[in-house]
């Protein structure tokens, strides 16, 4: 432990926050922004839910419904799904976990943040009635270029600015990991969160330019009269779908891998056991990273692609289940005979693993062409990806925030509020999304505000609404906990969870210059999961 005076990074003036190049402050800026966007887009979701509660049009006109659905999807995927834990927690933790003073290019990091901020401003601009975007987050042509779909340019530029931010962050993080590890931190004792973060950023580096190309061609077609997606002049709308999904399938792993990383950190700490299968975990991460780029056709099974492509990518999709299964197996192995401590982060991690398991199992039928032909574009798909993506992800981020809350704020997240929020969210989400999948199997298509008044369907929608309300209350309770923790939470010690990992050797909240001018000295046998004795808490 350093004796020198430690200035907490949080104690800074307004000017120091605005012009900051400190990875910790930038992380907090991301996290706060994405959290607010999460709440607003979540509210959009509730409105969508109420609209579907009964057949016929309930509370919003269909046109506005399309805007709500587009905003809900785009913001939750890009803000909550990517930026909250890569820009947010990733920024905060990467240098701390590898013992670095900052990221490799601190100013570029600040620029990433400002580009992301610009994208956020563009999203806010779409709130102005004439500026709505209504092409759904997927933006398929030809519809996306149609005046009915809203301001195509804003949709495209939101993706461009997020893209600039993502590529810059990827370049930055990858360079940081390669070049700035403290002596003694190697590939074989790096935190699982960092492994996952780097894999996710490799996907970003290779994938983001692909979606950027897709939407740029859309922009040119719409405003400059090019023919990329115009079959009458030799173009092909399926190009869009291919290039779009070449990124947008792998992106689900950008979203979920760091979440898996957090599960690993939390499960190991709160089982007081070394992470089971550490090496196989790294292997699984990189297998998933590679395979994720050769499965995208599973989003196009009904788009009219050749059979050989459908069969091939059906197999590769199922193959991804293997490394994914390895990870779940490893968490179980870690829990097995562990001294399990059910604090709030652990509850969220276990809940998240459960949600992912349900989501993963319901993903396998989607991967079979014959089955998917029947359920594609139904509410079954929506239920499936809310399990894997919506909920496993949210549980992971909520768990991660409570786990690193002491290091970020110097205070503890209130335990009781955390537990209450967990059970509400867990119950609400399962009621909502399970019955959404059933409605889908019965044939209810996705993306429509209206449906025929079939009594069974109506009942299923009522149940979903109840679930959604419980879920909403749970998120609200969690948010109250954040505010309470920030303002009056119990003061945190440096290492409240008695973790073995490097970031916990710093004071809480972390000092402005991390470990100081000299890189930290770690023991020759340092490992982030070297647990043995039960903790004192």
């Amino acid at each position: 432990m350093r004796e020198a005076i430690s200035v907490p990074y949080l104690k800074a003036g307004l000017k120091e926050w605005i012009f900051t190049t400190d990875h910790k402050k930038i992380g907090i800026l991301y996290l706060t922004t994405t959290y607010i966007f999460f709440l607003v887009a979540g509210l959009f979701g509730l409105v969508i839910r109420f609209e579907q509660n009964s057949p016929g049009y309930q509370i919003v006109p269909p046109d506005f419904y399309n805007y709500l659905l587009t905003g809900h999807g785009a913001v939750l995927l890009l803000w909550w799904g990517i930026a909250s834990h890569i820009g947010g927690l990733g920024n905060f933790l990467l240098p701390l976990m590898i013992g670095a003073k900052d990221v490799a290019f601190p100013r570029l990091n600040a620029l990433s943040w400002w580009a992301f901020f610009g994208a956020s401003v563009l999203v806010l601009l779409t709130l102005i009635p004439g500026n709505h975007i209504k092409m759904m987050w997927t933006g398929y042509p030809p519809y996306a270029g149609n005046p009915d779909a809203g301001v195509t340019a804003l949709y495209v530029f939101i993706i461009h600015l997020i893209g600039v931010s993502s590529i810059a962050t990827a370049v930055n993080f990858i360079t940081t990991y390669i070049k700035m590890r403290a002596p003694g931190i190697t590939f074989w004792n790096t935190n699982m969160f960092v492994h996952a973060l780097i894999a996710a950023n490799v996907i970003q580096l290779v994938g983001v330019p692909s979606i950027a190309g897709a939407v740029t061609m859309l922009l040119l077609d719409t405003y400059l009269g090019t023919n990329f997606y115009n079959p009458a002049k030799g173009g092909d709308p399926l190009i869009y779908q291919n290039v779009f999904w070449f990124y947008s399938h792998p992106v689900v792993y950008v979203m979920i891998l760091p979440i898996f990383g957090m599960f690993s950190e939390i499960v190991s700490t709160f089982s007081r056991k070394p992470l089971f299968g550490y090496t196989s975990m790294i292997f699984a991460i990189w297998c998933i990273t590679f395979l994720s780029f050769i499965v995208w056709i599973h989003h196009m099974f009904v788009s009219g692609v050749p059979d050989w492509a459908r069969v091939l990518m059906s197999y590769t999709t199922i193959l991804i289940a293997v490394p994914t299964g390895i990870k779940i197996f490893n968490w179980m192995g870690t829990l097995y005979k562990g001294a399990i401590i059910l604090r709030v982060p652990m509850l969220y991690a276990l809940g998240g693993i459960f949600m992912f398991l349900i989501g993963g199992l319901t993903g396998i039928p989607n991967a079979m062409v014959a089955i998917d032909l029947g359920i594609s574009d139904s509410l079954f798909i929506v239920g499936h990806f809310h399990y894997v993506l919506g909920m496993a992800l949210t549980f992971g981020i909520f768990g991660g925030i409570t786990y690193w809350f002491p290091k970020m704020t110097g205070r503890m997240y209130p335990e009781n509020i955390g537990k209450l929020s967990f059970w509400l969210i867990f119950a609400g989400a399962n009621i909502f999304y399970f019955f959404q999948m059933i409605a889908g199997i019965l044939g209810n298509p996705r993306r429509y505000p209206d449906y025929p008044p079939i009594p069974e369907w109506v009942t299923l929608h009522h149940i979903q609404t109840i679930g959604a309300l419980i879920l909403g209350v749970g998120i609200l309770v969690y948010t109250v906990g954040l505010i309470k923790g920030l303002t009056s939470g119990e003061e945190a010690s440096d290492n409240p969870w008695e973790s073995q990992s490097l970031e916990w050797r710093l004071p809480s909240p972390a000092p402005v210059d991390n470990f100081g001018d000299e890189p930290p000295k770690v023991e020759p046998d340092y490992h982030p999961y070297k647990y043995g004795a039960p903790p004192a808490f």
Partner: protein
Amino acid sequence: MAQGAVHHEPHHEVSIWPLPIGVGVLLMPISFTMFFHYGWQLPGLIAGGVGLALILVGAAGWANEHFTAEKEEGFGWVGILSFIISEVVIFGTLFAAFWTARVTHADEWSAWVPEGISLGMAGILTLILWASSFTIFRAETALEEEGDSGKALTWVFLTFALGLTFVVLHVKEWIHLWGEGFTLSSHMYGTGFYALTGLHTSHVIVGLIAQIYAMWLLASGRMNREKPTMLRATSAYWHFVDVMWMLVAGTAYLVGTAAL
């Protein structure tokens, strides 16, 4: 920065330059949307101009801060290599569109090939870029191995002159073809041709700007044998642009005009 054992008072790291660049980057889409979507030409142009100015000012301030205040960490090299991976994929999306159209519309394609398109021009452009890859390579060795900034400056200048010639000839070629009625919107060959060559030329221009900047750094003594990363990065980027040109020309000119 960190100089061995000297103790530093911990302080908040700040830089004012990313913010203006960020605002500039935000003004670009706003400018485009005003101009093209809403048809507000003047506000659109103003927003674009202000945005561009902010980006330039920010970039200059940033660069100055970097070269005056900091020691060279040499991270830029890894950074630029990973960025180039991203760039390759951007080109990949346009190739995908071009090649798909070329294959699925093989029967109509020959009717789309304009009279005036000449492989000779593509050849000349290729030779120019090859020469420029050689000159920038010489600049690099002059700086890194001989430590001769003056010599390096001369070689960078030659590279720049070659690159500029490339752009001028290319633009003349576009004007000529466009005049023949071969435009962006005529058909997928037109779209693919201008998109690929346009994207490539925009990269050449970025490379030229980097070279102007490198020349200034060399001339003012900010870049030297101890701090060569900027030149190495510029050179790596330029080699990438050169290699990419062969794929672009091979596609836009050879595959485009060949009778299959």
